[in-house]
């Protein structure tokens, strides 16, 4: 009897996968998911380099003059600089599938998570104050239909 039921079940016509599925699955580049993290890491590295350059630039004002020169040119002590404001932004985009607007227009939904870090750095003392501001955006992009 179970065999008969299995036969009946096998005869049932199944809903076919949409034609777009092949394109969506097979054309995904390997490593695509890691790209966002790689981009984020690169951006973070760039910001760190930027901060380092800014700090070293501030340090030049206080660099020791060449021997002998300082004695002849008694320049006034440079004014202490105020805190430097730096901003770092990290973001990550996550795909959350397709939405149907009014059940007709297909839209791809992306969620962008953003972390803004604002740093105030006292170049003279090296004291750093940090404020982190998390944010989130939803981006909808019209999807191609075939």
């Amino acid at each position, binding site marked *: *009897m*179970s065999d008969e*039921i*299995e036969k*009946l*079940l*096998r005869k*049932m*016509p*199944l*809903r*076919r*996968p*949409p034609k*777009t*599925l*092949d394109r*969506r*699955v*097979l054309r*995904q*580049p*390997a*490593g*695509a*998911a*890691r790209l966002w993290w790689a981009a984020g890491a690169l951006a973070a590295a760039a910001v760190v380099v930027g901060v380092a350059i800014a700090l070293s630039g501030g340090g030049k004002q206080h660099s020791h003059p060449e021997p002998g020169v300082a004695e002849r040119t008694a320049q006034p002590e440079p004014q202490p600089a105020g805190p430097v404001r730096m901003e770092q932004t990290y973001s990550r985009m996550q*795909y*959350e*599938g*397709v939405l*149907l607007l009014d059940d007709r227009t*297909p839209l791809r939904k992306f969620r962008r998570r953003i972390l803004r870090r604002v740093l105030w750095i006292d170049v003279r003392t090296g004291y750093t104050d940090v404020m982190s501001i998390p944010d989130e955006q939803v981006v909808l992009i019209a999807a191609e239909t075939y």
Partner: protein
Amino acid sequence: MRRALEAIYRKHKQGLFTLALAVTGRADLAEDAVQEAFLHLWNSSRSARAGDLVGYVFAAVRNAAIDQLRKRPFAAAPASIFDGSAVGPEVAVDQAEQFRLVRQAVEALPPEQREAVVLRVYAGLTFRQAAEALGEPLATVASRYRRALETIRAQLREIS
């Protein structure tokens, strides 16, 4: 590894989609689930693990489908895994009626039994592969499948 995954996708596309549809009850979520599962698999070093890759791929699609459903719960009636439009006017009345009864019986199954039926009958998996896909012991899946067939038989008898 990518080639092996592609081969599994091409061979089991229908089964993977049907499983995702059985879990989510929506064709768009099922499509998203299959895509996201493969996106994860392409990038996962775990896909190079030993063992049955087919069962692992089905498990990944099932998990992605559950995630989709969790992210976007849907209150309306779930879509059927069966294609109602395939039963056109040219089909004999008794055959169309049989289609309706079987569909009704399958849709009335508890989700875990329906998944067992989808994996065995429509995806063509072995019990071992189905067990891996569902993350359950083989005996549990086999017993669910048998119970599902008995339930369908009883339902058909009752309805007709």
